[in-house]
């Protein structure tokens, strides 16, 4: 276990060093990330300014939903986002080598990408979150901070589980990008807005299907001291549990997929 962890950091370090050789690439990534968020943010404020509020949520509160989703994403990106490109590794037979080394192949997959861009995302996420909570007038207590930690980690696990599932499907279908861009990405976009603007079906889907509502919508109620407004206030406290359960299930699926791995067709 300790050995695995140590190797994990050696591998991550190697990827970071490798990426430093392509500095321009890194700046390009950070730039495009910031541009994307600016765009989303402007759209959001325009909407709320125009309507004053969305379904009973003030602009500041809507921004908090958004920031909380971004926060979980920030924790998730470094470790899991590159799983979206797993189909390339399968197609090119690159994953073979993970299987002939005495180290858990899943760990090798996670450690197979530079964390630098992801760290930039995390810094941005935390900054945006602090700013949003200040604006929304969140009153911090030690208990709330602890709760926030659970929510951030749980949310990152929920998103991570989705990405692990995407890569697991790659074993079966040899495709991963498709699943990310047509299912996971749109669902992520949906939860940037308060869930109650959507129909019941969508709300259900984002709670029990792809449970992204646990990333920000339910927990935000607690941070804003409005948990009592939820139909089941308990929902606001399930994020870490949902994270662990979905992640374990996704990992199970991944291991199952591994058995059908056949590599590249030479």
């Amino acid at each position, binding site marked *: 276990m300790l050995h695995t962890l140590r190797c994990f950091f*050696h591998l991550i370090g190697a990827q970071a060093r490798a990426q430093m050789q392509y500095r321009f690439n890194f700046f390009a990534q950070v730039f495009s990330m910031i541009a994307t968020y600016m765009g989303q943010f402007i759209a959001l404020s325009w909407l709320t300014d125009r309507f004053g509020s969305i379904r009973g949520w003030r602009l500041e509160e809507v921004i908090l939903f958004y920031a909380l989703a971004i926060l979980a994403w920030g924790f998730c990106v470094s470790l899991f986002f590159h799983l979206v490109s797993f189909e390339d590794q399968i197609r090119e037979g690159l994953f073979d080598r993970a*299987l002939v*080394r*005495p180290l858990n192949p899943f760990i090798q997959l996670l450690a197979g990408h530079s964390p630098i861009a992801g760290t930039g995302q995390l810094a941005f996420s935390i900054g945006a979150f602090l700013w949003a909570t200040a604006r929304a007038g969140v009153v911090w207590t030690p208990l709330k901070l602890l709760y926030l930690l659970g929510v951030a980690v749980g949310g990152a696990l929920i998103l991570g589980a989705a990405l692990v599932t995407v890569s697991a499907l790659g074993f079966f279908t*040899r495709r991963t990008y498709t699943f990310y861009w047509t299912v996971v990405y749109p669902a992520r976009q949906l939860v940037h807005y308060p869930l109650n603007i959507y129909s019941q079906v969508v709300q259900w889907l984002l709670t029990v299907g792809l449970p992204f509502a646990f990333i920000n919508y339910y927990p935000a109620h607690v941070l804003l001291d409005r948990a009592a407004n939820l139909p089941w206030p308990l929902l606001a406290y399930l994020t870490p549990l949902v994270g662990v359960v979905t992640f374990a299930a996704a990992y199970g699926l991944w291991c199952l997929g591994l058995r059908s791995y*056949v*590599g590249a067709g030479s």
Partner: protein
Amino acid sequence: MEDAIITVENLRKEFRIPRRRPGFLGTLRSLLSPEYEVRTAVDGISFTIRRGELVGYIGPNGAGKSTTIKILTGIMVPTSGRVVVDGLVPYERRVENARRIGVVFGQRTQLWWDLPTIDSFELLRHIYRIPAGVYKQNLELFTDLLGLGEFLNTPVRQLSLGQRMRADLAAALLHNPRLVYLDEPTIGLDVVAKERIRRFIKEINRERGVTIILTTHDMQDVEKLCERMILIDHGRVVYDGPVEEVKRRFGRHRILVVDLEGAPEEVSVEGAEVIRRENGRVWLRFNRDEISAAQLIHRVGQRYNIVDLTLEEPEIEGIIARIYEEGM
């Protein structure tokens, strides 16, 4: 067999190649109701390898060599059959198996592409938990034998194919594996580079008693390195036995390719058999023991005007064709 390190019984591997449908809905449909085309890559192969052997596993492209290696190394799960490597079923005890083996895939490097070569070795040292003393000793030895010194600090992506292959070989042996799989370690290399790699392989096998399975479609590799060869074609074993035997039976034949002026209608030369013709180009098969190449060229020259000529070593395809023709 008592000292068997690898036992393979009735190994089969079928690839079910999904028929892809375009678009997202297509992918979803493929997932729910998949349609497959089945391709049998390994079709009932059995063999045993003893400790310390250096065996040539050879066959033409697409014969199923790499597929076999991928099952033996634990990368793939077979469709059916039994595989035991050093007491383990590799694809069920992947990590344990990985500790004991070394693997080189000539077509794809195992090294970290963007980092200096030495960094890959360092990473492997951690992954395999190689004791400092062993690591140092091996690195020195391999640097010496393979001439790695000149490029240890060069990023792998900048290495020539020959350098990369040498680095890959060293990487596969750093942790003192008992068993090494080399899948086409000489592919695409020039004669000098091939020779250097062959010498190293031989040395490792002799001095360290490492069992080596060498996959190749270069008959020369096998002749120079192996005592035993397993010849496969279309996923089946065509021959398993001494290399000498094959050489004695079929390796005496060589082929002289000549371009003749004016493309004569009838070509026949004493001591050689015309096996193919294309306009003025003629393929002549002859037996080294009966006539030397020089003699044959002389004879051809007496009757026709030679524009150009090349001498071909027997190819695996040719040997297989003759085994089918004549039996073994």
